[in-house]
């Protein structure tokens, strides 16, 4: 229930935040990495840090994560094939061999087909996600935004305690 409420808050705050469409879209593109790629991997620590430190919408990042997670599961077979094709590519063999024998690099699990495929998949999808989110936010704010802001539901959600936590990561 709390997760659902948090997700709803994220959605509303994100769409109505003072953040620019660019910040919201960048947050969603970054957050998508957490959902598209297997979560417990080193690269996601970097993504999370970027999401928190960069002046992008953190709420949009959480929303991107939530929306991309089911997509990540669904696309796993595609990511596996993509990753395996890259790991098997004769032209990249020297690079993988080098990276595999560099200290700490193997802990990124780059040599797992799903991890590599999903990271590459996310990099390929990041720009389309950014563009689509930006257009979507602009249109939403121009059409539905004000009506929703005046609704009771919006006011109730934003009044909850979780909103205070969210404010810490609100775009400036």
């Amino acid at each position, binding site marked *: 229930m709390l997760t659902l409420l948090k997700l709803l808050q994220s959605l509303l705050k994100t769409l109505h935040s003072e953040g620019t469409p660019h910040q919201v879209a960048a947050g969603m593109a970054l957050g998508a990495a957490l959902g598209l790629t297997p979560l417990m991997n080193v690269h996601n620590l970097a993504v999370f*840090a970027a999401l928190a430190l960069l002046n992008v919408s953190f709420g949009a990042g959480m929303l991107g994560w939530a929306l991309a997670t089911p997509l990540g599961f669904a696309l796993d077979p595609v990511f*596996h094939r993509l990753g395996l094709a890259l790991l098997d590519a004769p032209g990249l063999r020297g690079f993988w061999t080098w*990276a*595999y024998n560099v200290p700490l690099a193997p802990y990124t699990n780059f040599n*797992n087909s*799903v991890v590599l*495929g999903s990271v590459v998949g996310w990099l390929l999808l990041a720009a389309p996600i950014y563009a689509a989110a930006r257009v979507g936010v602009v249109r939403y704010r121009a059409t539905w935004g004000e009506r929703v802001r005046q609704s009771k539901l919006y006011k109730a959600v934003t009044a909850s305690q979780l909103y205070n936590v969210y404010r810490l*990561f609100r775009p400036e």
Partner: protein
Amino acid sequence: MARRLVRWKAVVPLALVVALVALLAWLFAEPVARDTAEEAASKALGTQVDLARVRLYPQRSGFALEGLQVADPFDSTRNLLQADRIDVKVDPVALAEKKLVVERLRLEGIRLGERRARPARPVAGEGYAKTLVRQLDDFRRRLDVPLVKLTPLDTLRQLALDPGQLGTVKAAKALLAAADSSRQAVTRRVDSLRFGPLLDSARALADSVGRLDPKQLDVATAARLVQRVQGQVKAVDQARARLAALEKEVRGGVQALQAGVGRLDAARQQDYAFARGLLKLPSLAAPDLSRAMFGPVTIDRFQQVLYWAELAQEKLPPGLQPRREEGPSRLRMAGTTVAFPKERHYPQFLLESGQVDLTVGGSSPLAGAYRAAAQGITTEPALVGVPMAFQARRDAPGTAVAALEVRGVLDHLGAVMRDSVLVTARGVALPAFRLPGLPLTLDPRQGGAQLAFALAGDQLRGRLVISAPAVGWSPDTAGATLNDLERLVVRTIARIPSLDLTAELGGTRTAPTLAIRTNLDEAVAASLRATIGEQVAKAEARVRAEVDRLVGEQQAAARQRVAAVQGDVEARLGLERGQLDQVSARLDQELKRLAGPAGGLIRIPKLKL
């Protein structure tokens, strides 16, 4: 107002989050390491591996495994190995590359073959080990151990054979069909060559040229005629080449049919054995009796050694090619993890050199102090450059196992992997076992055993020698009355005070052979021959006659059909070849006649085919 790129006020909360993650990692690192190690080891060994606890000692780059249990892949109720504690010191530089180079290894409280509290679960997923277990089941079936049959002989029993059950009948029918289709195929192929029009036009040209007088021809006409004849000769030669190619192909087909005829004899031998089996006739051959009595227990030993050898060849392959493995278990798809070994770098796993003094405690026959050594045990033998070797020995006179020595070499450096192991035990309390098909349990008591096994590429070589000077025999008569034959065999065997068994494994993985000789087989065979030899011989003659009656006609028909097809095909091809040769000779003759009087005016170019 220009927006800042970095949100500095989030640094503190982020640092708190990172600290929380680090705290969770510190709290849960050991349980996670235990789960990961259990999963990886279970997958690699194809059997359940349990760990009570993993302790991490980052300050001295080491860890300890506590309460290790490795289930026996062939007996889920037992553990192959148990260890109270294994202390491992690893190379920290290699660990930075996520590689495990073991510098020091210490084992405590090793126990072998102990009964498990709960039976082992089958390993989840479809890993190599599971495939291997299935392959070894096939290996066992291929060794085809006969059964000891000691049911009462009933010489009057009717032998009800259904021709449909006999392999010779099936093979003969298949051969008849193959012969017919071969004949039709050859006819179609020869017809498709369409030599008729070519022969007609060649003959017509030869006839028309033959009617001309070369002396009456001017040079130009003669040259034109020569050219036409040459063209025809060329076409005929090409036809002959096509026919030759077809002949070659057809001969291959005919040879296959003849091989089929040869296989009918082998099928008939199998049918004799099948029919013999229906009458439940006991085998009176000494090697068969040994294989029947000691085959299963011998194959068990070889099968277990072969399992570990095959697993070693799969997991410790030669060369430095990238290696695929199933990825880790997680909610998301596991995927495939690829390792990229590199020259002059650390292998993924290496036990450089270890001297291990270990003690097997408890009341097990194997209890005692062992000295074990291992060298160069690695997942990438090519990086280490020397064959992997291990040995363990124990001397404990007066115990259940007076001496035990295990030596093994895994040479995975070349393209052909060579693994060998030699296990020698003296003064062993050998386990008792029931002789299959006989109401008798053999207790070998104290004895000696040696198991030598080698796997080189696909070639298997194994030898198991068991020597027990004072055995005990216990008739297993509970709830059953023995028939005359069983009583005879039990009496014969029970008089033999010792057991000397030699089993030889040979052949390949897909076509293994097993020969077993014991000091029992001749005695049992002789007593059976003396008692029922005549009856068995009569019954066998009846079996052969019945099989011959049912399959003779079919086999003869198949032979005749193949011979007929061979004759027909040869005749048809001979006819075509003869016609082509004949017309070719005629054209050559006319060519010479045309060129002759021209006195060298017409140069006949050599034909290039």
